[in-house]
């Protein structure tokens, strides 16, 4: 397993909060921190935890983890957690939330965003009748002005 140990946010970051107890850093760990910042270096984990992570990332078979001390318990625990995560993964947004969001959107955010002559209009019989009436009226006015 390889990883970037030099990502600043993942090191001395108090925001990362609760951490499980770790063994004291060995000389080997210290040597890792002196490597070039952009190199990928192995994650300094204990063997069991490293294998567990590899299994959960799909890199090793479950039998390998089960063969380690405490491996069976860890696999059972993560199988339960995985089942619970699967349940959450099937969750969908309640339908009323869609309507609630649409109802709370402001009406006029993008109205007038473009000039009226660039907006699309939808045609229906009422619009056609109004348009015809307007054109007829304009035509009548022009005819009246010309032939008076």
């Amino acid at each position, binding site marked *: 397993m390889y990883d970037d140990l030099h990502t600043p946010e993942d090191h001395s970051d108090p925001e990362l909060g609760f951490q499980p*107890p770790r063994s004291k850093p060995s000389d080997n760990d210290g040597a890792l921190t002196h490597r070039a910042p952009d190199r990928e270096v192995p994650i300094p984990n204990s063997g069991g*935890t490293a294998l567990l992570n590899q299994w959960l990332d799909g890199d090793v078979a479950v039998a390998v983890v089960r063969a380690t001390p405490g491996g069976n318990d860890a696999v059972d625990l993560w199988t339960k957690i995985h089942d619970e995560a699967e349940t959450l993964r099937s969750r969908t947004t309640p339908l009323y939330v869609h309507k609630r969001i*649409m109802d709370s959107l402001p009406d006029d*955010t993008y109205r007038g965003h473009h000039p009226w002559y660039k907006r699309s209009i939808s045609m229906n019989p009422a619009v056609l009748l109004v348009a015809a009436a307007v054109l007829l009226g304009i035509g009548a006015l022009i005819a009246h002005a010309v032939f008076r």
Partner: protein
Amino acid sequence: MTSATGQVDQADLDQEVIKRVLNGSRDSFELLIVRYSDPLYRHALGMTGSPDVAEDILQQSFIKAYAHLGEVRGRFDAWVFRIVANACKDWLKNIRRSHVSYEEDDQPSSYSTPEEELDRNELRTDLEVALAALAPALREAFVMKHVEGRSYEEMAELLRTTVGALKMRVHRAREALQHLLEGKYA
């Protein structure tokens, strides 16, 4: 998981919808809500543990997305995901919760027996309490990997960080959860 071509097609469709909304078709925005609300809701639910809070975060995030729709550069889904993800982290920073509220949930149960449902509810509660002990960045990485089932590459693209950094966060989150839960369940 969506293929690269699928994502490009989807991104083109999203751009078309965005254009329509910006031209004044407010109702077209519902297409984006319907298309993306489920993964965003799951993220908010996984991050907060509360359906009510997840719904509020989703609503506020889509309102914000609507108001700033003209600023979308690149993929809409990644852009709106970051709005939701930031809202969740802000909520976690402001309200440190110690209790779950999945019981507020009214979605139907899928368990075969009442005993199984009780066991699973207990695990769910313990898992939520354990997740609440994690820093927002670790919880976010764990939820994206295990609840949403995303690949590290997809997570890196959405969160604009490296695969290595995310692996580290997921591994730390797992170690912390293992430590918190193994006494009871292992």
